[in-house]
């Protein structure tokens, strides 16, 4: 399945009769790359991700287009791992196939392989509550990747983790999502610079794209790489402009 570009055009979105979060917002997400959406709290980053996923619960006008268009291409990972406590790790990883009634031996083989790549081998039959926070989030990442979707939507997936675990997961994620169109919402400039090919900064009210930064070296990037150092200061300044 080839990874699509995502085009959002003229999006106006509001909750009920509130002031709009976005007013004729347009932006492009590159195919097969990781795009990071950065912006101050409450600017609508997560809502934008939910709009791309096809969620409802808000009033919206405008379009989201996947090109080439493919049905049901989206996988989701949020801040909470959302692992089902009544299922073992491997059953959680295979959840999508089970929910669609497609579960087969090949899914099990792929799940075992992914679990090994995610360095969770030996924990296949463990219940989530017996795993550490980092292991749980790794399992959630594997469940998302198991879907084999061409678009991956990630909403601050590592924000609740400690610094070292976060770095490990960022690296694993960068390795395993290569070639997938990934949209990563974060409030962490360092995370964006470590993982993204393109950083889209939202700001203002209603939110608009303030600027876009393309980062050319291959992620994951070290904090002391020249490109990271070059962009970090500017990124912080842009974020601080909208920080209250």
């Amino acid at each position, binding site marked *: 399945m080839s990874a699509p570009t995502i085009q959002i055009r003229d999006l106006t979105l509001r909750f009920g009769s509130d002031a709009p979060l976005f007013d004729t917002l347009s932006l492009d997400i590159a195919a097969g790359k990781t795009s990071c959406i950065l912006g101050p709290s409450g600017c609508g980053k997560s809502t934008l991700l939910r709009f791309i*996923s096809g*969620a409802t619960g808000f009033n919206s006008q405008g379009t989201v287009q996947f090109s080439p268009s493919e049905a049901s291409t*989206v996988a989701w990972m949020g801040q909470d791992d*959302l692992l089902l406590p009544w299922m073992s790790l491997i059953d959680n990883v295979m959840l999508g196939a089970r929910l669609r*009634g497609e579960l087969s031996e090949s899914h099990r083989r792929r799940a075992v392989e992914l679990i090994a790549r995610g360095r969770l081998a030996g924990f296949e039959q463990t219940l989530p509550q017996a795993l550490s926070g980092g292991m749980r989030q790794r399992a959630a990442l594997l469940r998302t990747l198991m879907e084999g979707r061409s678009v991956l939507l990630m909403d601050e997936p590592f924000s609740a983790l400690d610094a070292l675990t976060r770095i490990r997961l960022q690296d694993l994620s960068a390795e395993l999502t290569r070639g997938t169109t990934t949209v990563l919402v974060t409030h962490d400039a360092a995370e964006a610079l470590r993982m993204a090919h393109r950083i889209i900064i939202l700001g203002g009210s209603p939110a608009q794209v303030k600027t876009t930064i393309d980062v050319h070296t291959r992620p994951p990037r070290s904090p002391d790489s020249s490109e990271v150092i070059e962009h970090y200061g500017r990124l912080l300044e842009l974020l601080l402009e909208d920080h209250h």
Partner: protein
Amino acid sequence: MAALRLIVLAAGLIGLWQLLVLATQVPPYILPGPLPVAQALIDHGPLLLKHLKTTTFEIIAGLLIGTLLGVSCALTMIISPLLKRWMQPVLVISQAIPVFALAPILVLWFGYGMASKIAMAVLIIFFPVAASFYQGMRRTSPDLLELARIMGAGPFATLRYIVIPSALPAFGSGLRVAAAVAPIGAIVGEWVGSSSGLGFYMLHANARMQVDVMFAALAVLSVTALLIYFSVDYLLDKIIYWEPSKGI
């Protein structure tokens, strides 16, 4: 440890009981001491056991049927919002009318046999099971439902793999309450009209001023109620293995 706690608790209560009898000098036909009650337990053992079988069967049958009906009702209300609007008032009415007031009618309808007592137990058990299971399903995490939607799950798969398991801890709480109150239905039914069961035997002893036998029947009923409660609790801990109950 739990067994030791129970033994200590029982010994403490029996000690207090004996102290009360000694301190107040109440005549034995009002409050018999533990020893006459123990003697009554031995003397009437075979008869008590025979009546216990009837009551236990009524309680367990009521628990099973009440749980089945409660679960079916909750599932129907979750699946069909239209039916929910019709069923919710019935559910409330089933609790608004005191079950004791219904006992004579149930005996009239179902006769003096076990059926009327089982019906009483069902009426008592039905509501906590239906209400807790329904509320548990309603409180399924919206994030989990959203995840299931994105994964392409249909309504049946979402119900089976997400909604029902999410509701099981709440269902367990309701069933524990139901197990604790289930004997009430059976005993009240036996009081109103029956020819067998511990409730019947208590009335029989009461008419003959055999207060020690009444207390013996009460003791047997209490132990049975405890056994049923702890069996349900144990089973639920095994079924809802990801969220075992804490404490007793």
